[in-house]
């Protein structure tokens, strides 16, 4: 799924790295616990979270993720945006809640279980 499609489906506001909206993601992960996110490596995944601090961006960076969606209208800090820009990670914010946002992406074909074994 294109990152721009995620933005449309979730009616999200793009906060940074708009130039990367044409990139693709193939799986998704929704969690507020970063070590849960770090437990399963997926290629080119999007992270949906309600947690707002710098570790969210670092976690995405460690996982080579290229998009973070903040749910429930959470807004990243300026410092987080800088970190995301350095790593070309698209950040967007949606008003939808976690359950709904994940459900919309899942039912539009973005599955969560493309787990890569390590």
């Amino acid at each position, binding site marked *: 799924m294109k990152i721009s499609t995620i933005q449309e489906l979730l009616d999200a506001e793009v906060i940074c790295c708009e130039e990367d909206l044409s990139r693709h993601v193939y799986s998704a992960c929704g969690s*507020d*616990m*970063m*070590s*849960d996110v*770090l*437990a399963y*490596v997926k290629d080119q995944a999007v992270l949906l*979270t309600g*947690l707002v*601090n*710098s*570790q*969210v961006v*670092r*976690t995405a*960076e*460690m*996982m*080579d993720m290229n998009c973070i969606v903040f749910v429930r209208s959470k807004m990243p800090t300026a*410092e987080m945006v800088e970190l995301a820009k350095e790593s070309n990670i698209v950040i967007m914010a949606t008003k939808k809640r976690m359950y709904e946002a994940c459900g919309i992406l899942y039912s539009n074909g973005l599955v969560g279980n493309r787990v890569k074994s*390590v």
Partner: protein
Amino acid sequence: MSEALTFHFDVDGADFTSAGQASVQVKKNLRLLGISPDIIRRVSIAMYEGEINMVIHAGGGEADVTVTEEEIVISLRDHGPGIKDIDQAMQEGFSTASDRIRTLGFGAGMGLPNMKRYTDHMEIRSELGKGTDITMRVNLK
């Protein structure tokens, strides 16, 4: 690359926001060395988990990453409270993290299991009241 390369980091225990910076730097360094992306990801996730643990459980510490032709060795040392029961700490879901730590997104009890899963070898030495030493190895060959 015929000689071993070592990167050293001091991990500040007082600053949660900057935690993970050493792992980010390691990731950059390994990229410059031309290490494969899969290996880089495994090393940096394992180190990141260890670095966060040093910050949230042990008040900071030190990290060294050594790269040879055969392997990448990550060693982490802290002078925190130590781990009472290592077998228990290694179980998925076991955590002593406070509610405050949980609101910061950590405390799922997945860090040590992740470190073990992403590396080829992991050894933990810990003494109560003295600190914790963790060595992780990822094979390059």
